[in-house]
């Protein structure tokens, strides 16, 4: 995950404080509720210039920081590999 992504994520995680956000971090455990997930979706789409497709609009996409980053990376670089 790059720093831009984790810092974009942090304001949505009310229990994260200044602690580490790892790929395994479970976003709901860190305070992300479903209505805030909507705002996070908008933030991701605006920040990274992507549109999350229908098949990725499922609850599992928002389960962990790493899982969400994988979706962002896939949408940003559909033919190449991402960096983690």
């Amino acid at each position: 995950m790059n720093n831009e992504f984790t810092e974009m994520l942090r304001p949505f995680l009310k229990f994260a404080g200044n602690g580490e956000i790892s790929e395994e971090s479970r976003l709901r455990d860190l305070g992300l509720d479903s209505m805030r997930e909507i705002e996070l979706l908008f933030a991701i789409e605006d920040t990274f210039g992507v549109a999350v497709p229908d098949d990725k609009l499922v609850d599992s996409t928002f389960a962990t920081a790493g899982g969400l980053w994988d979706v962002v990376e896939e949408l940003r670089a559909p033919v190449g590999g991402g960096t983690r």
Partner: protein
Amino acid sequence: MPEPTPAPSDDLAAAVGGALAGVDLADARAVWRALGTKGITAALYPRAGTGPPQPDPRSLAVLLAELDARCPLGVTLSVCVQVATVLPLLAEPSGPADRARTGLLHGETVVALAVTDAAGSGSDLLDATTWAKLGEGSFTVDGHKQWITNATTCDAALVLVRHREPRHFTSFCWLLVPMSAPGVTVEPAGRAFAGSGVGHLKFDGVVLDNDALVGRPGRALAGFARQVGVERLAGALWARAMCRRLLADLRDWLRQRPAAGGTLWDRPAIRERYARCLVALHQLDALCTPLLDSTDAPAAAAGMLLKVTAAEAVDRITAEAVQLRGADAFRDGGEAALRTEAAMFGIAGGATGAMLAGIADHADELVGSRS
């Protein structure tokens, strides 16, 4: 069918007055028809811009102030929800939604927004249990929506339905349900909000073609969350107009009401109470004014701040209008009756308690960092 020719925005107030001349102002459908046929509704939506056409905030403010000055609260509510929320959500390139939108702009069609579910709190839509099950090229809808504005008068309802099991924002979609579809029943909600057509909708095995789907599946709550910012701005602009009207009427009344050789307006205690109302009105105005020239919907925190401020201003000002007028407030069409219905500013579209919880979630953004 071409869209009606928009009325010039600088003449909008006069155009609204002209359109409503001779119209039964207690009949929401008649008011809606007049606004549509005279191009008032179309005038709210500038042609330029990307995304769903959104109402111009200044035009919206003029329309709502003119309606508030003339119509019962329920009639203004009927118009407000359609111009601020329903019309933008129906922006589709073709199909039933596009046809309904054209009918709305002409004032020929009324569409209800059916969100609040009988199975859950209106402030927590994730508990909704109105379901749409996908079959062979069709949806089957079952469920119950409550306290829906325009329910008893609409031609169709834009219904928020669950299409997936997880309690998550991606589990919902919009369906446009004709009221004539077999299995749709409506029950009036009672005498409150006269003119609004508020009622309860029941869907019992309602079968719809796939083209009843509006927007992308899984995006309904996200789209609604973005649109609700416009709805909250509309509510705040309406509240501002109502508060101004009440305070102007109250000032004039207090200045004429004899009291101990002078008038009530001369009494310091009354002037202080009135001044606190002015403070509340100007707090609301200060939040509304910067948004009047914005082309974007208010962000989530701004929308919630608007909603709470509007609700609290209406609550304070209607309460003072009743208390300061005393028995006079209970005349037909007086402030006492309005106060009862205007309490909806703190309930409909998100209760104040839920808004405050959401505002707290934005504390870092709203407070900023220590300098």
